């Protein structure tokens, strides 16, 4: 029975339970004089029956969908003869692919066919039986649960409380997904990074000056030892971030100040959403713009001025990234500036200060913590930005501070290392997770500090 049929069947069973639960609760109190003799509304009796019918079955289904494949694979491997038992994880993946292809008839059986063909049949049989067992178990669970709930219905049953308890549990579960996500990120990145640090020492990774993540196929190959020193990547990321910030912070801040302090409401109502458009453009579009329009423009201008400019200069990527971050800075700055109480403005103006003096000497210092927090959030955004640098920055890990040179960043390297086919346990692939860990830790701490700064500031005027 296919998964979707099973699911549909289960849904209809749940609907039936609801219907009969509802009917029974109404029927029970009919001789007593209507539903005012019920403890809860009939809806809750129906819902309770539906929950009894559906919840255990759905949990079983979810568990089966998640864990049946690994279990079947393990069973299959233990039944294989000793000589073709897989030695490593990669071998195991290859083997299971081969068996599956033979079982599906895509692959002609090769030399070691006998055992593998048998394994293919075994696999199909295991899958088939697990599916039938689960279907039978699931449907009987649903029927038994629904019937049990149906029999338990009495006018005194506190159905509403029970249903609401389940509902609250569901809400709690949903809100815990955020924690599981963070945990999942941490575990996945940390686990692979630890595997990476087993082959490359942490100090080499954090303080090494050269990055060339290729691994040899043969031991005697030229340049066989890959170098995993991440300093050039950090430097490149910082260079591009600094360029982006020199564009985004002044422009964002000044436009926020102008819009909140000077602009007529008409200009504000036009300019503000127009600037927000920049925030809604996908990063891949900025990347395309940087690579095909800005970078050639900068290269041509530079060449005309007698400079040597790389066609993948850090400047192009940084400038475009700065433009992308402008609305982010300006909307955060706008929030903190408008949070400064009007009385402070009035006080300053009453003392004879001009408007710009008020902004610079009164509003800006008062809003400073919030602005600093906003800039830090913007920096964390720039560090984690991927598509612009993947498309417009280079691949070569140069350790340079020249914005006209090509540099590479942490995110570019993660993408380069992980896109395409890879084996999962080579240091090359694992290096991407170590870089991911660095990225996660840095952005997380920046956000944490920024939120802290912003929150601390907010308490001052409330």
């Amino acid at each position, binding site marked *: 029975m296919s998964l979707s049929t099973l699911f549909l069947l289960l849904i209809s069973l749940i609907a039936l339970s609801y219907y009969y639960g509802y009917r029974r609760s109404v029927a029970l109190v009919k001789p007593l004089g209507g539903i005012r003799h019920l403890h809860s509304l009939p809806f809750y009796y129906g819902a309770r029956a539906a929950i009894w019918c559906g919840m255990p079955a759905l949990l079983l289904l979810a568990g089966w969908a998640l864990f049946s494949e690994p279990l079947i694979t393990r069973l299959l491997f233990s039944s294989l003869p000793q000589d073709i038992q897989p030695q490593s994880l990669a071998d195991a993946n290859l083997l299971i692919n081969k068996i599956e292809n033979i079982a599906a008839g895509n692959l002609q059986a090769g030399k070691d066919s006998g055992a593998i063909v048998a394994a293919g049949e075994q696999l199909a049989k295991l899958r088939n039986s697990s599916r039938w067992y689960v279907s039978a178990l699931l449907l009987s669970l649903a029927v038994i649960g629904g019937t049990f709930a149906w029999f338990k219905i009495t006018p005194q049953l506190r159905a509403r409380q029970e249903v609401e308890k389940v509902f609250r549990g569901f809400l709690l579960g949903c809100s815990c997904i955020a924690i599981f996500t963070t945990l999942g990120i941490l575990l996945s990145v940390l686990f692979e990074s630890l595997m990476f640090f087993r082959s490359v020492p942490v100090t080499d990774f954090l303080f090494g000056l050269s990055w060339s993540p290729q691994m040899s196929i043969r031991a005697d190959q030229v340049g066989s030892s890959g170098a995993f020193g991440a300093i050039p990547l950090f430097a490149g990321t910082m260079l591009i971030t600094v360029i982006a910030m020199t564009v985004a912070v002044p422009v964002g801040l000044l436009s926020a100040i102008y819009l909140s302090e000077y602009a007529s409401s008409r200009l504000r109502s036009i300019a503000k959403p127009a600037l927000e458009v920049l925030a809604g453009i996908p990063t891949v579009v900025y990347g395309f713009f940087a690579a095909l329009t800005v970078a050639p423009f900068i290269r041509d201008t530079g060449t005309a001025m007698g400079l040597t400019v790389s066609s993948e200069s850090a400047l192009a990527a940084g400038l475009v990234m700065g433009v992308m971050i402008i609305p982010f800075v300006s909307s955060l700055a706008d929030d903190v500036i408008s949070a400064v109480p009007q009385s402070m403005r009035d006080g300053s103006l009453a003392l004879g200060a001009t408007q710009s003096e008020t902004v610079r000497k009164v509003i800006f210092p008062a809003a400073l913590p919030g602005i600093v927090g906003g800039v830090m959030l913007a920096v964390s955004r720039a560090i984690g930005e991927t598509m612009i640098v993947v498309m417009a920055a280079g691949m070569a890990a140069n350790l340079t501070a020249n914005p006209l040179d090509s540099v590479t960043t942490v995110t570019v390297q*993660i993408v380069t290392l992980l896109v395409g086919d890879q084996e999962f346990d080579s240091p090359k692939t694992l290096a991407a997770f170590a870089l991911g860990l660095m990225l996660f830790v840095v952005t997380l701490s920046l956000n944490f500090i920024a939120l802290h700064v912003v929150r601390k500031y907010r308490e001052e005027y409330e």
Partner: protein
Amino acid sequence: MSNEAEVKTIDLVRKTLVRRNRAERRFRLYGLASIFFGLACVVVLFTDIISKGHGAFFQSYIELDIHYDAQVLGLDAGYTSADLRAANFEALVKQSLRNKFPDVSGRKEKRDMYRLISPGGAYHLQDRIAENPGLLGSNETLWLLASDDVDTYFKSIDSSEGAFTGKVSEKQQLYVAQLIAEGVIEKQFNRAFFSSGDSREPELAGIGGAAMGSLYTLIITILLSFPIGVSAAIYLEEFAPRNRWTDLIEVNVNNLAAVPSIIFGLLGLAIFINFFGVPRSVPIVGGLVLTLMTLPTIIISSRAAIKSVPPSIREAAMGMGASKVQVVMQHVLPLAMPGMLTGGIIGMAQALGETAPLLMIGMVAFIVDIPGGISDPATVLPVQIFLWSDSPERAFVEKTSAAIMVLLAFLIIMNTAAVLLRKRLETRW
């Protein structure tokens, strides 16, 4: 004494007033300049994309007389569909080109001539025969797709910067000139761009496959992230006790909102693909990853929407004897729904434009077939843009820009819908 000091102050003020006013004007100018810089960026970006991409909505076609010669095709009377697939339709195109340019001789010239027509031309003929087998043996005048080089050349022929020749040889330019003189080459609306999948040939490549992939991915995302996000927001706003656990959840939600999207891709790769063994490149994994990514956005905006419902509503419902759950489900939730929907649409717009995490989970493969479901290998619009922007053919620049225009159009529609929804359903308490 006091009189003297007063005079001094006013003198001081007068002396510096000009400078201060100048500083004031300068400051205003800076502010105005930065706003104009931001607006100029918007304008430049859009004009650049549109000027590069508008051409892709039209494609060059060449009119040819085709004789469906069964002998050339190698088809006899009782041919099967396998025979039809193996038949040499390219030879038909070549023959008709030879008829069109009878003077062309020599290997190289002939090869140049054959390259005027895209390989897609032969497929088109094949489809014609498959649709009406009666055509076999007859003549037909058809518009066939020109190759990408010819297309680029033909489109640039009357541009102000002069024609872009690229890989088009001088002979080919002569052939095109002859075609123009005869009026048998023209630009037609490029319907295939919207309906076909990816291709190595720019003139055959379309965004249909990527658009379907985006659709399936977004369906998964919205089905999961909206209910989960709204439930989480309800819990945090209405039911959560003030304790450490709740604080932990809140901190997590806020931090996840600022985690770089590529990290979610790493999570998807390590957990969904390597641990649970979900296949690569399928919309279901993409949807799961984007769900986790958009969840904080939806939770935060839904919480804001719930917060804006005044407590008096809750108190009134409580006073009528409703339970806490009933108050929330029957009163707070319907009133907060517009705000939640707005947040949901914005989250979906974010998911539609996202590229980096999908690269990590293998949605970057070259996929020709249009996906038919959530478990078929697929790619999405932004990834398609990324793939095309990497291609060396000049014609792909045009295609990429056009795909960007389509993507931006979708995003603008979604964001406008969000704004309108907010405006229309906004309730002032």
